[in-house]
């Protein structure tokens, strides 16, 4: 209980001292810069209090890129430490902290917000809606995610990082074996972010069920909308389990209960079960939207309708269902016996069937298509072979008996990086190159994009391919060093070199953003890829009300057919009506801040202060309950002016594929 002030700031490590100074300078710089440019009001009214799904999406994506940087630095530090045997770059404690934060940040604060960001930007546009069902709740989701992410990230300079792995297995993660406050950060920060994610799931289910434009039946929805819908269902079905698991962890650590402890009748494997009951669906929560992005990109650049649309939908549903009944494959070595392990082996292998169907559908979509090799398409192309390697090694791991050999080795680590990097990171890059012009009105540079692509893909393979062989040779995961006699040194060195190439790819990506912001052509068409779905039928960047007139859908790939038949592209003055839009609100960001403060006090087990901040949370809820702001109406004149600005000639759509 109480804060030990001498342990408040982490001291004594030059790397961390450097980070503390860097963070301080960045903060001072940001505040000074915004003040100098007099941008506080702009920032507040246009971004921090916004309820516009596109801006919220962009904030998610910016956060995700920052978190990618943080998680990537963790990865590089690990690779540096294991580059040579018996290295003394990081000590074992520091290494434990870094692989823990790497895992948590990459999954929950990089992959999730990146995908949710793209979902936010694209989904209402794809279904022809003007916003999500609950715009203010959407902002709350973002601020809770952001609050959780920041709380988690400060752990390495204030109080100490969690160090029990991203899975935080008990008894290691309990108070008995991890007495510091590091794991409190894990329990509390992920709880706050998780509430935000749950709200996102609810929001998108209702949005997709109720806000589709006229004529868009469920089986006419774009594939990204379908995957988002099923992912949202998975979020609602799986995240409450994590909420409970984290709450019980918090009780064990802060209030001395015995859920997962060794003493008092607790059961440590209960944590592993609960964690993976959420954790395995979570893998598909990030993978399914990524599959949706690939479906859009491949169809667009093959200039064909997606092959096997119905089988795609049923595959998604099959994957979602199976994802809930495979969790035990993460701990076959728990010793549940052959019957249980066999059951979970079979369900796990069964996932390969719908996934295989999807693979062939993508390949058949490309068959006889007029393929355009753009940066976005390159990511989709590279995804196919890389993900297959991840999938096939997954089937190897699925065999319960064989898993006793692979368990806890780098083979597993290589496997899931081969699943998650092609399956999620390639997808968000593809999505970013694809939808960037829709978000910002200019394209990312294609030439730099190809450098980004090749460096990243080659670096990725060189980094993780050797880890399969290291794992088969017996190199265990989460070990901070190894002996020279083990013979692991050459492959570890190769892997470390690969990680530098990978990082160079990421650096080129950042440079591409910088270059494109400064120099890219602003005078582009609203449909630069000659695309197929409704988001391309409106302006780039999209006007705040999305559509002056809600489009009407008659078939799949509606915009493609609108262009073919030249109907529904024009807007007559008589069709313009006043549009009702929601107002900005300060409540979501306030809730994010107050949740962050309450969480911070709870991490330090300063209960009275946490309770006081908790009152602030309830105050926010009450203010929201009494808020009867019903939004505002956009006048016809304004719509007229905005529409005329981008429809240079009525109905004209310029092709602009580089």
């Amino acid at each position, binding site marked *: 209980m109480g804060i030990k002030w001498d342990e408040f700031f982490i001291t004594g490590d030059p790397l961390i001292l450097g980070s503390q100074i860097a963070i301080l300078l960045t903060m001072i710089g940001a505040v000074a810069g915004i003040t100098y440019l007099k941008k506080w009001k702009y920032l507040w009214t246009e971004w921090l209090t916004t309820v516009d799904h596109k801006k919220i999406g962009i904030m998610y994506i910016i956060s995700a890129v920052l978190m990618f940087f943080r998680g990537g630095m963790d990865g590089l530090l690990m690779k540096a430490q294991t580059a040579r045997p018996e290295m003394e770059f990081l000590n074992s404690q520091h290494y434990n902290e870094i692989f823990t934060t790497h895992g948590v940040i990459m999954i929950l604060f990089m992959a999730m917000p990146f995908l949710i960001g793209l979902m936010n930007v694209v989904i209402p546009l794809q279904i022809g809606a*003007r*916003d999500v*069902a*609950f*715009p*203010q709740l959407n902002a709350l989701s973002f601020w809770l995610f952001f609050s959780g992410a920041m709380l988690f990230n400060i752990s390495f300079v204030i109080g100490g990082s969690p160090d029990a792995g991203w899975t935080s297995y008990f008894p290691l993660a309990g108070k008995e074996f991890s007495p510091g406050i590091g794991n409190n950060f894990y329990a509390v920060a992920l709880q706050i972010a998780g509430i935000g994610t*749950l709200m996102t*799931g*609810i*929001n998108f*289910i*209702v949005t997709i*069920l*109720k*806000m589709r434009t006229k004529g868009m039946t469920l089986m006419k929805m774009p594939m990204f909308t379908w995957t988002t819908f099923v992912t949202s269902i998975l979020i*609602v*079905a*799986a*995240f*409450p*389990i994590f*909420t*409970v*698991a984290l*709450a*019980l962890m918090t*009780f064990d650590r802060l*209030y*001395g*209960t*015995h*859920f997962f402890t060794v*003493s*008092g*009748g*607790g*059961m440590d494997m*209960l944590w592993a079960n*609960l964690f993976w*009951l959420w954790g395995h669906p979570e893998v598909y929560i990030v993978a399914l939207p990524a599959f949706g992005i690939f479906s859009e990109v491949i169809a667009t650049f093959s200039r064909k309708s997606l092959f096997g649309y119905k089988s795609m939908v049923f595959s998604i549903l099959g994957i979602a269902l199976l994802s809930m009944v495979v969790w035990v494959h993460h701990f076959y070595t728990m010793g549940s016996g052959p019957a249980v392990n066999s059951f979970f082996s079979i369900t796990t292998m069964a996932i390969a069937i719908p996934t295989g169907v999807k693979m062939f559908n993508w390949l058949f979509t490309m068959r006889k298509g007029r393929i355009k090799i753009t940066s976005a398409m390159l990511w989709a192309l590279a995804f196919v072979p890389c993900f297959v390697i991840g999938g096939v090694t997954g089937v190897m791991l699925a065999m319960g008996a064989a898993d006793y050999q692979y368990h806890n080795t780098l083979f597993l680590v290589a496997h899931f990086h081969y699943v998650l990097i092609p399956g999620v990171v390639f997808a968000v890059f593809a999505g970013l190159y694809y939808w960037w012009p829709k978000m910002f009105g200019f394209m990312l540079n294609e030439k730099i994009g190809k450098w980004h692509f090749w460096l990243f893909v080659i670096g990725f393979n060189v980094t993780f391919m050797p880890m399969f062989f290291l794992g088969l040779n017996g190199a265990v995961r989460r070990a901070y060093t190894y002996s020279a006699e083990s013979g692991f040194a050459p492959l570890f060195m190769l892997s470390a070199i690969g990680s530098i190439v990978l990082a160079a790819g990421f650096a080129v990506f950042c440079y591409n953003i910088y270059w494109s912001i400064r120099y890219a052509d602003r005078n582009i068409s609203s449909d630069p890829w000659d695309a197929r779905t409704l988001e391309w039928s409106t302006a780039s960047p999209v006007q705040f009300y999305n559509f002056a007139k809600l489009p009407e859908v008659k078939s799949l790939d509606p915009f493609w057919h609108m262009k073919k038949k030249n109907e529904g592209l024009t807007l007559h003055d008589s069709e313009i009506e006043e549009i*009702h839009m*929601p*107002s900005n609100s300060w409540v979501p960001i306030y809730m994010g801040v107050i949740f962050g403060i309450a969480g911070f006090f709870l991490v330090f087990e300063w209960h009275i202060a946490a309770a006081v901040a908790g009152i602030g949370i*309830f105050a926010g809820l*009450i203010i929201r*309950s*009494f808020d*009867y*702001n*019903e*939004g505002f109406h956009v006048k016809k004149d304004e719509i007229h002016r905005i529409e005329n600005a981008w429809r240079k000639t009525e109905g004209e759509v310029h092709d602009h594929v580089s």
Partner: protein
Amino acid sequence: MIMSAKVDTSLPLEYQTEQDRMNILGFWVFLGAEIVLFATLFGVYGVLYERFAGGPTHKDIFVIKDVMIQTVLLLTSSFTMGIAIFEMRRHNLKGLITWLVITLALGAGFLFMEINEFIHYAHEGATMQTSAFLSSLFVLLGTHGAHVTLGIGWATMVIIQLLKRGLTPTTARKTFIIGLYWHFLDVVWIFIFTFVYLKGLVA
């Protein structure tokens, strides 16, 4: 926020606007998440319920008479909540508020009994820290109790809005949603009564 100003007056008040229909559907989805949450807590209890670690067992601490009173109070409150919504459909604001207040009073009675029950357990030496069984018992009951507490506070806010604004599509929707929430808590209690108390007594 009413995205579409279209009002369909052939429907009950709370369903008349598109935004209100979406809010109600969203709340049903939220209740789905709540079902998963409580199912997980029941699962945890099911795993740990015989792990006494030398501490008191179910039979040592449960007082079935008090539990019966709690059950009657809560089930009756669900019924009165039903009447409240019925009065709302009849556009009878006074009846609605009266029955809502009765509902909350019954809920508060339940809560009072539950807090006494916890104090009684603590006197018996049965606290959250005693054993895995008691940890899971307290957290399961406590989560339900916290939901009831939150529901009372929330419904009070809605009553204030009803008094200030009368029955509008928005206040009707808010009342309807708190009704759904209240019935849900009742359903959870039926499971607690069965799988915690009754099962504990026959174990």
